[in-house]
C-alpha cells in the first residue's frame, strides 16, 4: 500500500463523525469609501508603510518622472503613469531583477483593517519584482478599499492566476531582541497612492 493510501485509510478510520461546516455569517463594519481610505492609510502607517489619498494622477506621474531622473533603475508596470518597462516578464532572472531600485505596481484591492493590498501576478509582471525591489509604489483606486478580509476574498479570485499576494507595508523583522527593523529581505519602503474618483 502506498503512503497516500495508508494516510487516507488511517484518516477515514480515525476521523470523528461528520461535523457540519459553519456558515460564514461574519460581517465587518460597513464603511463608505472615504472612511475606508482613511482607515486604510492609518493602518498602513502603523505597520511602517505610507499612504496618500490623491485626486490628481499627475502626482504619481511626477513621482515616477523624478525617480527616473535620479538615474536609478526604476520599473513602471502601469501604462497610465507613463512608459512601461517592457523588459520585465515572467522569465526575468533574480540576478537582473536585483538591480531594480524602485517599482510601480497597480493593486486590485486594499483592506482597511490591515493595510494590505492584493496583487495579481499579472499586475506585478514578475513574481519576484515586488519583493526584490528596494522601494515599492502601489497605485490603487480608492473605491476598491474594503473594510475587512472577508470582503476582500469576495472581491478576488485567488486561483485566477498562478500567484497572488496580500502585501502589507514594507518587509520587516524583529528577530534580534524583538527590535523592529524595516527592510529585512523585501522592499524597504511601501508607498500606496489612493486615487479618489
Amino acid at each position: 500500500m502506498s503512503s497516500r493510501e495508508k494516510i487516507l485509510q488511517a484518516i477515514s478510520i480515525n476521523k470523528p463523525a461528520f461535523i457540519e461546516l459553519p456558515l460564514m455569517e461574519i460581517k465587518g463594519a460597513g464603511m463608505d469609501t472615504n472612511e475606508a481610505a482613511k482607515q486604510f492609510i492609518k493602518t498602513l502607517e502603523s505597520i511602517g508603510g505610507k499612504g496618500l489619498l490623491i485626486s490628481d494622477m499627475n502626482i504619481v506621474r511626477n513621482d515616477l518622472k523624478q525617480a527616473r531622473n535620479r538615474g536609478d533603475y526604476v520599473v513602471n508596470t502601469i501604462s497610465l503613469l507613463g512608459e512601461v518597462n517592457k523588459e520585465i516578464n515572467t522569465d526575468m532572472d533574480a540576478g537582473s531583477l536585483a538591480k531594480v531600485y524602485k517599482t510601480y505596481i497597480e493593486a486590485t484591492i486594499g483592506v482597511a483593517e490591515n493595510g494590505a493590498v492584493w496583487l495579481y501576478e499579472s499586475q506585478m509582471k514578475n513574481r519576484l519584482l515586488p519583493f526584490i525591489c528596494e522601494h515599492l509604489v502601489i497605485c490603487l483606486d480608492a473605491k476598491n478599499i474594503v473594510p475587512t478580509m472577508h470582503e476582500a476574498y469576495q472581491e478576488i479570485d485567488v486561483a485566477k492566476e498562478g500567484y497572488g499576494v496580500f502585501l502589507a507595508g514594507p518587509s520587516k523583522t524583529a528577530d534580534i531582541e524583538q527590535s523592529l527593523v524595516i527592510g529585512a529581505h523585501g522592499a524597504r519602503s511601501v508607498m500606496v497612492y489612493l486615487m479618489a474618483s
Partner: protein
Amino acid sequence: MKDHATLSEKFIADEPRTDWHDETLWLVRQKRDSAVRRVPEWEQLRELASQIKDHTLSNLDNYLMAFEKNAQANGIKVHWAADGAEHNEIILRIIQENNVRRVVKSKSMLTEECHLNPFLTGQGIEVVDTDLGERIVQFRNEPPSHIVLPAIHLKKQDVSQTFHENIGTEEGNNDPRYLTEAARIHLRDKFIHSQLAITGVNFAIAETGGFVVCTNEGNADMGTHSADIHIACMGIEKIIPKAEHLGVFLRLLARSATGQPITTYSSHFHKPRIGRQMHIVIVDNGRTKQLGRPDFRNSLKCIRCAACFNTCPVFRRSGGHSYHTAVAGPIGSILNPNQDMRANADLPFASTLCGSCSNVCPVKIDIHVQLWKWRQVLTEEGYTATGKKAAMNGMAYVLAHPTIYRLAGKVGRWVMRVFPFITNNKIFNPWYKQREMPAAPKQSFRDWYIKNKK
C-alpha cells in the same frame, strides 16, 4: 535524555536573562491583546475558526483528495509521506533528479520536526535558512527555541558575535539594524544563486488546490521566485475547505502571533511559472494517530501562532530549548507525547494548568485540559517517574484515611519544629528549592476548631 525540569534549571541559572525572556514574551502577549481589542467580532472569529477546523478534521480524507486533484490540475506535483524519513527522502530525490546543490529554506516547523536540515547537509547539500532568526540559530547549530521567534533566547550581543564569526560583521557592533542589514546582503546573494526553495505551508485550500505562505521578512517569496523549483511541505492538518475561510484565519493568525493586523506577505501559490516546478509534500508523521485520539485530536486544529507560548508562565521562564522538541510550549506539550510517549512524558507536567493558553488560542483548542488528560494517560501507561507515582499514591492513601492524615500532620509539624533541616533541605525536598518553608503551627486547624467551637 534530560527532561524539562533539568533543562530549565540550566536556562534559569542566568536570572537577568530569564527575566528578560519572561518580560519580552509578555510584551508580545500584550501586543496581541491590544490587536485583539480592535476587532469587536474577535470571539465570533475564534468560534468560526474552531468550527471550520472541526469540520475539516471530520472530512479530512476527502478534502486531501480534493486538494490533490485540484493541485495536480494546477500543475503542482503532489507527494505523500507517511513519516519524517519518507518526507526527507522525497525532497532528496527531487534535489538529486534536478542536480541541485544550493537550497534555500524559509520557516517550516514541519521540516524541523522531520530533521530535514541535518539529513540534507549529511548528503552534501547546502541548505540555507533564510528567516533571520532561523539563520542566526543555524549558524549556532541550535534548533529554534520558539516557532514564531526562533532566536528569542538570544541577546543582540550573541547575534553580533555569531555574525562576526560567520559573515564577518564588525566585532562588538550590536545594533539590530546593522546586523539585519548584514543578513539582508548575505542572504540576497543566497537567494539569487539558489536553485531550489523549500517552504512550509500555512493553509492549503482544498477547493482551489493552492496554498498560502505567510512571512514578514519576504524570505519565502525571495526564495521561491528566484529558484526554479519550489517544494512546499505541509502536515495533513493544514487543509481548509475554501478560499473564503482564509479571511477568518488570516485575521486571527498574525494578531495572535505578534499583534500585527496581518503578516507583511500572505502569498497565494496556485501554479508554477512556465518551465518551473512546484511540489507539495503532504506529511502524516503521527498526525493520523492523533486524529484517532478523541481527547487529543483537536490539537490538530493548531495554526502555529504561538500565542500559547507567549502567555505561558512556564514557557516564559524556562525557554523553548527546555522542551527538547521542534514545537515547544503548551501546544507542543500536547502534540509531542503522541509522537513518543516515553521521550516526551515530562512535557504535559511542564505547566501550571492555569488555562491561559486555552484562553488565547485562536482556534479554541482546550490546551490545558489536554495537558491534564495527558498526565493521566502517561501515568496509566507507566511513563511517569516512579518517585512521583509513589508519592501520589502515598498522598492518596493518607488523604483517604483521616486517622493517618492527622497522625502525619502531627509528625510533620513536630519534625519541622525540632529538625527543620530535614524539610529545609534542597536535596530531600525539591519544593524548597525556590521557596521558604512556612512556620509550623503548634496545632492543626482541626484541633483548634474542636477547642474553640463552643
